């Protein structure tokens, strides 16, 4: 009741925030969570056999989705730190949204990794026996840290509002201070957190990329380009997410007011994509130039079996990149939304493509001398049994099961729910913007 009243106050502000869509999103988030959690329950009962992952293709949609959310989680701190590092004052109003998006996405990423564990009940072993040579341990550490940092970032930025409105989280202590003091505190710490957070933003991508890039067993991953490319993609997609959320948050009505900020974001996205494509080109060149059997197999997969997905990965972001550099692309609300969505699809395809060529190019390939057979992949036992069906495969046409897709909704549910709940509860454009 009380909250509603205050909400009414909010609606009278100059920035109209669409309440209905937010309620709708909240419900959507809740529904997605419900679906995902029930799927998880079923998976816990039956085992990971309900997914379409097998020994030969042991990471799938879950890890790809995890990597996707890690990627878009970057945006928050990149936007806010750019404000401070590059004095991009235009973006300042969007820093709260940026932080919130980062927080929600890193929560989502963290949530996604859990159902991928065969024995989630033993997750405490990570605390008891962390093995620091494992990139996964570092990833858990940096992601946890990032969740904390992004939470703090949201927190310090919302503090002045909360103090003023006499509500919020963990803000009892602010009562002792004057609004000005808190305002000052918020400003100072927003900046600090953003700058402290930046290395974490870079780290989560680096470390997540290192999970893959360290593995000499998988040629597709085993490249030093993977971490910088992860960062490039993260800058692009993370920024695009902030852009998208902001566009939705300010609505048609507020578009004009923030148009400059939006355009700046679009250009950041496009710029990051240039870097990304540069890496892609270099990577393909390096894989292809040597002409090894593994390289051939990889190309056969990329441009054969997975040409559609690979095309999606390449073409959609390429379109967005070009589009966002054009006036037409970066200055209308619709085209910005379109560009972001296409980019997300492309980046999601990119994350899936981390898995496909890698797992389907079986690492143990052999050259068979004197027979004209260049590469032969040693078959793998799938780990699943069905009468009349082979237990050994040399490739696995992985496609996520319905259940996997349902469970894969988990981070989407988390992100949508957290963001819309936050939007519903608090105000995310700073007061300063109304002045």
């Amino acid at each position, binding site marked *: 009741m009380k909250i509603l009243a205050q909400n009414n106050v909010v609606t009278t502000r100059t920035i109209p925030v669409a309440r209905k869509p937010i309620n709708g999103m909240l419900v959507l988030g809740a529904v997605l969570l419900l679906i995902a959690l029930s799927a998880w329950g079923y998976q816990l009962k039956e085992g990971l056999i309900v997914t379409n992952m097998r020994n030969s293709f042991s990471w799938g949609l879950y890890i790809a989705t995890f990597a996707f959310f890690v990627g878009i989680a970057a945006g928050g701190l990149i936007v806010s730190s750019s404000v401070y590092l590059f004095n991009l004052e235009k973006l300042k109003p969007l820093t709260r949204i940026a932080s919130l998006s980062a927080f929600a996405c890193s929560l989502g990423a963290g949530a996604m990794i859990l159902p991928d564990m065969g024995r989630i009940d033993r997750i405490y072993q990570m605390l008891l026996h962390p093995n620091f040579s494992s990139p996964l341990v570092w990833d858990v550490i940096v992601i946890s840290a990032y969740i904390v940092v992004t939470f703090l970032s949201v927190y310090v930025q919302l503090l002045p509002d909360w103090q003023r409105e006499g509500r919020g989280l963990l803000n009892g202590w602010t009562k002792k201070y004057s609004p000005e003091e808190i305002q000052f505190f918020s400003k100072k710490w927003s900046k600090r957190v953003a700058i402290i957070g930046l290395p974490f933003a870079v780290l989560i991508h680096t470390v997540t990329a290192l999970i893959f890039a360290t593995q000499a067993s998988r040629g597709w991953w085993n490249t030093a380009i993977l971490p910088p490319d992860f960062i490039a993609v993260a800058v692009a997609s993370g920024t695009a997410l902030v852009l998208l959320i902001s566009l939705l948050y300010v609505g048609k009505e507020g578009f004009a007011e923030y148009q400059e900020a939006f355009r700046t974001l679009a250009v950041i996205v496009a710029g990051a994509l240039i870097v990304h494509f540069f890496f892609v080109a270099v990577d393909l060149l390096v894989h292809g130039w040597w002409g090894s059997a593994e390289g051939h197999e990889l190309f056969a997969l990329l441009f054969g079996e997975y040409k559609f997905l690979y095309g999606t990965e390449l073409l959609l972001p390429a379109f967005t990149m070009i589009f966002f550099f054009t006036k037409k692309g970066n200055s209308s609300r619709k085209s910005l939304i379109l560009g972001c969505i296409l980019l997300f699809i492309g980046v999601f395809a990119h994350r899936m493509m981390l898995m496909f060529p890698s797992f389907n190019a079986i690492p143990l390939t052999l050259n068979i001398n004197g027979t004209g057979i260049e590469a032969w992949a040693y078959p793998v036992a799938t780990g699943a049994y*069905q*009468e*009349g*069906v*082979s*237990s*050994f495969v040399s490739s696995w046409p992985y496609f996520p099961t319905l259940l996997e897709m349902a469970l894969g909704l988990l981070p989407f549910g988390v992100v949508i729910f957290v963001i819309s709940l936050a939007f519903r509860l608090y105000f995310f454009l700073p007061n300063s913007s109304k002045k």
Partner: protein
Amino acid sequence: MEKNKAKLSRRQFLKGTAATGAMVGTMGAVGFANKAIADEVVSGESGSAPELKTVRTTCSPNCTGACGLNAIVENNEIKAIVQAADYPEQEYNPRGCLKGLSMMNLVYGPDRLQTPLIQKGKPGVDELQKATWEEALDYTAQRLKEIAAKYGPESIGVAFQVGGTSYVHKGAMSRLATLAGWNIHHAYDQNGDLPMFWPMTFGVQSEELEPSEWLNARYMAVFGSNILATRLPDAHFLVEARNKGTKVIVFDPSYSPTAAKADEYIAINGSSDAAVALGICKVILEEGLYDQNFISTFTDMPLLVRLDNGKRLKADEVEGLTKPTDTPTYREAFVAYNGNFLTVHSERLDLPENLLLEGEVEVPLKSGERVIAKPVFQLLKESLNHYTPEAVEKESGMKPDDLVRIAREMATIKPLHIVYGASNYQWYHGDLKGRALALINVLTGNIGQPGAGISTYAGQYRIRLKVGEWWVPEGRKQNWLPFLYVLNGPTENMKAKYPKDGIKALITGWGNPFDQHNMSNILRERVQSGELEFVANIDFQMTTSCEYSHVVLPGVTWYEKTDLTASPVHPYLQLQQPAITPVYEGRPELWIFRELAKRLNPEFEKYFFPGLEPDQAAEEVIKLLLKTGGPNCAGITLEQLKQGPVRLKSEVPGDRQIPFYEQVHGKRPFPPQSLPAKLEQTAQFVKSGRIEFYKDEDAFIEAGEQLPVHKPPFEESEYALNPAAREKYTFNFVTRNAIYRVHSTHSNNIWMNELQEGKAHIWLNPTDAEEKGIKQGDEVEVYNDRGKLLVYAVVDAGVGRKVAMFEQGWWSRYLKETSYNSLTYPFIKPTHEVYFVPGMWAPNTAWNECLCDVKKVGDQL
């Protein structure tokens, strides 16, 4: 229950056990070797030590392996199996294969028979109903009595597969069949395992070198025997021999794993081996590379043959000669020439050296006629004239240069061992091919020497001891009927006695004829139409044959009973010993036959050790068999056997198994005895007492097969049956054996099927596959006018052109209810009907003499 003392691990890799003990630490489990030594109870360091027991038994499917295996047993359940590796000759350790080691899957698998079953509806269609032993045995006895009363007991056919795997329990079946006057179908010719060249040439059922002798050979020529699959536990000898410098050469239409391990692989056309062999012999004769002394002493080469009638000249016919009075009735005295005509004594190999081998002589007969006669050697030489390298190439595809080179190698590198595989003689002219190949060994004197000879390695055919006391009670007469007649009906020339109403009931054990035997579909139809009125099957699992039976009686495996085995190849006497009590309601077969016997006729019970538990009774039988088994097992006791395998005795120093060693080294007449036949039964096959290449019985003369000749396949079989087949069916349906099965046994073994993509396959040459539009993994129909088979394609460049190669042994349910033996045909070759001694000279099945076509499923013709 027998506890085994033998240690389990063949080698221990750690030197000191102290170090080991320290390392084990708090480990609860204690290794089973220690367990075996500690005998049942081990006080482990923690309470979780399992109570393990190991029991040594002999793996005894229809495979020549006869591998000693240890069952690791906990709580009356077999947990794992490992080779016993307890043969006194280290080179035989460890013996056993993937099938033997996964036998748990059959013992405890879903197809294990749980209770007796009775068919109350239509066989093959309706479900069999569970029954008590009482009901099932009563019913079986009643039906058999009815049929015997109506058609005579000889209308009841019995098949229990070959004997070496089970002297006791199979013996019980033989015993009952004999008492009841039933007809027995000898498994050896039913299987196609009988290499007819053996009785024709050497007067024996079949012989071979034991595999460790391969190491003594310097040249090993393998003609269509896939040793890596079908002699799996012995295959290492082949590789070791090769690495010791023995030249290994494989002749096969298809490139097999065995070919891959050989020094040389020669691709030849299907069933062209006789042409190759005779081509080789021609080179040997032309270049004088033969052993004149050997052929004069041990063979019929010096015997004279009358040109007027093609018969061998008998001493009794020749002026001045008489048949020695001590010539047994089953023998004949023939004639040789060294300036004078000489009587060739059939029991002595003592002719002078200067015999006429080439040329001709005029012979004055007692009748006053004079006839021209030539020595066999001369005739052979003339007949070999056709086999020029070029002519051989035309038939076989083998290059002339290769032929000449290999002929010289084979003639000069000694000892020479030829392996003539079952698959290769399971052709219509399999006998001719064997005679031609044996000729190479004989001409070069490669017989009866360490590492030398010709071997045919087939299933557990051979009987290694005298079993009469147990198998044939009180010397009664047995009725025998070759299985091919059951399918074909009687023929004009048959020597076996065909029952007046044919076979009306079938009792089978240790076999799965409704998949494995000719015209399996006809057999199925006969049961369903009622022509075959009653089928009872004794097995431990639900085979296709069980599905078509009226009564199914659950037997047990070699882990659940006591029996005595002796494999033909691997010359040890070994026990099957119960590791566990029978699973479900299975019963040792001896018990089943005793129960059946007493229901058929209360008088019969006394023949089966009434009152004794099956294992006790089995021990009594073993004692009887050891006592009456003759020289091969003289002195061997049951107690010794319980300690481990005991080598069978032989006349070769070291009890080695080298066929005809005694003949060659002791100049004894051919043949040695082939158990269980009496010598007079088999000695009639080689009446001269010598190795015979010239056969003058009428059927041979009619066929033009007095001497070994090459005859192309299909002419007298498929094309004679249906001339249209020449155009219509151009693929040769070859059914070989798989490493994953022993025939149909293990066809349902889950792990074996995992290893085969869960599917049955047909192997095709890439060119043929392409012509037929078939790709790797496609579903393919293999068919002819008689039947069809549904399988999946393996496209393999090693497969010969126009060969459709199938690994036989799949139960119908894995073939969408089709059957590979619906394509094959029970051809009977007239020369196989010249004599009849069960399982020794009888019409032999020719699985590979079969034509078919292939098409991708879904394709129209």
